[in-house]
């Protein structure tokens, strides 16, 4: 029987962790861009846009991410579209991330006092100008910590894509376990790598929160 050193195991896991990082980045950036577009509709004046985004958010927040992955992977297959695992994983995670970010950001925009809207309106500014110069600069400040905090959820969410056969960190853990029969060591390392990815994010979210609060007080 072949033997594996700890380095063999770790090396393979780290190689797979690259895909976790890539998938996280793609989901977060893609979800962020889509989230911004949805936010524009969600807080806009058109009723249809608001209702659409509300439905979208309820759909994606109200169903498990795993189901969304299955639907993206197998569902499109039903229509004869052959979806590779990476595409299904990326697509589902982008849609899922956007659904959460749009709600986080909506809360941030609405947290800006209504007096800010009234004051800027009374000075003759239009909706877009109010948003751009008065509301969003204040909302962004509020939004940064929870947004960075949510990126942790995205990183952990990528673990589910192993189910549809996308080889990222978790899937690699399973593969390596099947070869080495050392599940505790392997999954222990997997967990440590996830932690190494997530902890700096949640820590920086905390630091940002403190920093932006201070900035708000003292500039």
């Amino acid at each position, binding site marked *: 029987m072949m033997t594996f050193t700890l380095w063999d195991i770790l090396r393979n896991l780290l190689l797979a962790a690259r895909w976790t990082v890539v998938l996280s980045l793609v989901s977060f950036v893609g979800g962020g861009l889509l989230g911004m577009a949805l936010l524009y509709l969600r807080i806009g004046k058109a009723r249809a846009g608001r209702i659409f985004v509300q439905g979208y958010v309820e759909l994606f927040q109200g169903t498990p991410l795993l189901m969304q992955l299955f639907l993206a992977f197998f569902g499109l297959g039903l229509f004869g579209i052959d979806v590779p695992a990476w595409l299904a994983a990326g697509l589902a995670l982008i849609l899922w991330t956007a659904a959460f970010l749009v709600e986080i950001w909506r809360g941030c925009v609405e947290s800006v*006092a209504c*007096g800010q809207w*009234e*004051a800027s*309106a*009374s*000075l*003759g500014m239009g909706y877009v100008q109010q948003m751009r110069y008065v509301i969003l600069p*204040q909302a962004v400040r509020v939004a940064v910590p929870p947004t960075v905090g949510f990126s942790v959820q995205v990183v952990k969410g990528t673990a589910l894509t192993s189910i549809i056969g996308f080889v990222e960190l978790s899937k690699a853990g399973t593969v390596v376990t099947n070869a080495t029969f050392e599940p505790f060591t392997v999954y222990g390392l997997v967990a440590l790598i996830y932690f190494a990815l997530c902890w700096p994010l949640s820590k920086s979210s905390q630091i940002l929160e403190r920093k932006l609060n201070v900035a708000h007080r003292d*500039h």
Partner: protein
Amino acid sequence: MSLIAITEVKKRFGDVEVLKGINLDVERGEVVAIIGKSGSGKSTLLRCVNGLEMIDDGSIMVAGAQLINDDLHLKALRLKVGMIFQQFNLFPHLSAGRNVMLSQMVVKKTPAREAEAMARRMLERVGLGHKFDAYPDQLSGGQQQRVAIARALSMQPMALLCDEITSALDPELVNEVLAVVKELAADGMTLMMVTHEMRFAREVCDRVVFMHQGRVHEIGPPEEVFGNPRTPELRQFLGAQLVV
């Protein structure tokens, strides 16, 4: 023709009719105080003149700009008439100077240098020339309100609406704001102010409007309204003010 013409204005919030047919004309350079109990509709009336609330019936005209619910008309109206709020509503992420510059640059497309010069002049006018770079949370309430006045003035409106602008201030800060308003009045600015400062209304205003249950209940020069109230409602209101 009067600068502000309010004709048969009606406004309801759901089932409650808060303005039941208001008629009021304000002449150029006139200073009008609106007094009355809370819920009498005085703040709502003021907000309608600036288009922050829409009216259900009647019409409001300010120097030829009519209150109509679309962006173009609202902007035209708001360029004629500025507003100052109880809660100051300065933009907290901008310095005092930037607060005064922003709308000039964004709405009127004034070049930054001119906008800054105007901002410095206006801040000087309210006695805060030295606070150009201070942020709102580094200023006292009275100073913030004076910056808000400078901000409104920088748009060179023909009239200013003041919605209980001293109500959120500590007592010792009220006077510095009122002094600025008094100066504006002396300079000939047209002012419509909702206020609880009866003494100020008496000293500075040309006319006092007493609102009661959504109607203009009594109107006249301050000597008359304060000295010789004709209706029991006004007498009662003034009596309650004296006790406080």
